[in-house]
């Protein structure tokens, strides 16, 4: 499923150093610039955490990358493929997966069916009609369910999962797509301490084949997982670097503690 860029020609002189390159990204809602001339880059196999006060534009950045919101100007290149003009479903097929802030799962379906729907086969109307639940599908669902600690809950309706389990399920739904870039919006919100530890473990385990962008408020959790931290403030990058560097950046200190 590792979709190689189809139309993005990779020539030698501009071989992509970065998995994701966001440059000059701006979006305005009726004049209010929620994201303002934003640029940042994500490497292969990197866990990037985006932090920032409320209203800094964190969720909007994810919305822009996955195509939920259309950019006013600027570019988002994923493996040299321009995402800003692609439809949401083609962005997913290009290898970008996104988890929403509130666990977004299908309550009426079982855990198995939730995962199966995200299995990257039979995505066209005709494909979905003729899709068969064959051994490969079952095996893959089983494999992902074990990763997200839900192998014993496969045939329970998702409605009856705990909040933390729902969060894992949605992460699992993304994993089964095997995306190259995984974007998680507050994955540990509402989780108990032990669930947080397990989630950090999970993220560190799945990093092997992909990059991850995480939005998170919980600094302890951020420290556990982040390779690099980007601090957003009023739609712009305030600071960027390792956790230690960012923590000691006077600008960051001022935004968080200054007022």
């Amino acid at each position, binding site marked *: 499923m590792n979709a190689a860029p189809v139309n993005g020609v990779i020539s030698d002189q501009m071989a992509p150093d970065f998995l994701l390159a966001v440059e000059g990204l701006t979006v305005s809602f009726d004049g209010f610039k929620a994201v303002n001339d934003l640029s940042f880059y994500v490497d292969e196999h990197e866990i990037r955490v985006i932090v920032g006060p409320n209203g800094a534009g964190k969720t909007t950045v994810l919305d822009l990358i996955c195509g939920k919101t259309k950019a006013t100007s600027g570019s988002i290149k994923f493996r040299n493929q321009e995402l800003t003009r692609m439809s949401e479903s083609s962005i997913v097929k290009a290898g970008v997966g996104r988890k929403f802030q509130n666990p977004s799962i299908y309550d009426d379906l079982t855990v198995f069916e939730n995962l199966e729907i995200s299995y990257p086969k039979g995505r066209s109307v005709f494909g979905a009609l*003729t899709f068969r639940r064959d051994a490969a599908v079952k095996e893959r669902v089983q494999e992902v369910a074990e990763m997200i600690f839900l192998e014993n809950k496969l045939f329970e309706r998702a409605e009856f999962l705990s909040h933390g389990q729902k969060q894992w399920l949605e992460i699992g739904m993304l994993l089964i797509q095997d995306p190259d870039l995984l974007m998680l919006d507050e994955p540990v919100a509402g989780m108990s301490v032990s669930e947080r530890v397990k989630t950090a473990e999970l993220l560190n385990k799945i990093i092997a084949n992909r990059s991850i962008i995480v939005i998170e408020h919980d600094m302890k959790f951020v420290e556990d997982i982040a390779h690099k931290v980007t601090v957003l403030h009023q739609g712009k990058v305030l600071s960027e670097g390792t956790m230690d560097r960012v923590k000691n950046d006077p600008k960051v200190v001022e935004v968080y503690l200054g007022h």
Partner: protein
Amino acid sequence: MKSTAFLSRSEWIGVAIVAALILVVLPLSVDGFRLNLVGKYLTYAFVALGLVMCWGYGGILSLGQGIFFGLGGYCMAMFLKLEASSVENTKIQSTPGIPDFMDWNQITALPWFWEPFRSLPMTIILVIAVPVFFAFIIGFAMFTRRVGGTYFAIITQAIAAILTILIVGQQGYTGGINGITDLRTLNGWDIRTDDAKYILYFVNAGLLLGCVLIAYFVKHSKLGRILVAMREKEDRVRFSGYSVAGFKIFVFCLAAGFSAIGGAMFALQVGFMSPSFVGIVPSIEMVIYTAVGGRLSILGAIYGTLLVNWAKTSFSESFPELWLLGLGGLFIAVVLAFPNGLAGLYQSYVEPRLGKLTGKKSDETNGALPQGSPAE
């Protein structure tokens, strides 16, 4: 994992019971006139079945299913009317060979869009193709722009109103408010005789069961689960790599196709087609059939249609003024008290007891019925 099989065991039993009811019990127990009436009701069940897929599973409430029922019916009626308007039959007209209402409206040549309906094979294709194409246009325009929920309902209703006004207004081309009447033969076979009505009843029942199986196939395919998923979390489906609009268009077209078959069978069995089956009122009444049967129950659509129409016929015969009150009350009751209709009642009261009797667990797919199924 019963749910991936084409039909689960309890579903097979359910289909068999319905088949026995409409193929054996009803034909044996009611007279020819009543059976023809049942046949007419069953043509509405096609619409209700389409609504189960489109509204129950897809969460798309169309208040314009009469459009597709009507288009299918008109396509069939146009063919029958042309056959009934042979030069010989219409020699007293000033222009022989065209339908009588055209002659009355001083039209002297058959309009171009009537021409294809001289051929039966072409008509059979168009009966399905015209409504489905129409549904595709509406669906494409609306769903790719993310119009849904109440807006979609209002706009389909408006389109139903427009089509009715158009049919009534263009009397010379459509037969106006009276519709297309006096239909006689199908390829020379007289459809007005008792024998013909008997045969048509079984053809209709067979087609309905065929559509039921198609509906089950769709429900149990991955597409059926995507529909449920879409109804709940549209964005999650979209960001799992699906083109949500495509699936909505598909299910809307499927419902339109079912309705069209119903409409065509209506014209054949009842012998006329009129705009009173196209507009707002019939369209929304067909929604109540679905709601009574249970919006998530494929077989419920058939029971709901039969039950409501049976009630309508018996009430309108004895207390016509009570019927509207009853129908109105039914709308309110179904929405407020029984959002899952008869099927919901069956699942919560009858099935557990049956299960106790046979000592077997109820089918797991039935668990996938949410309360009230909120559709945005």
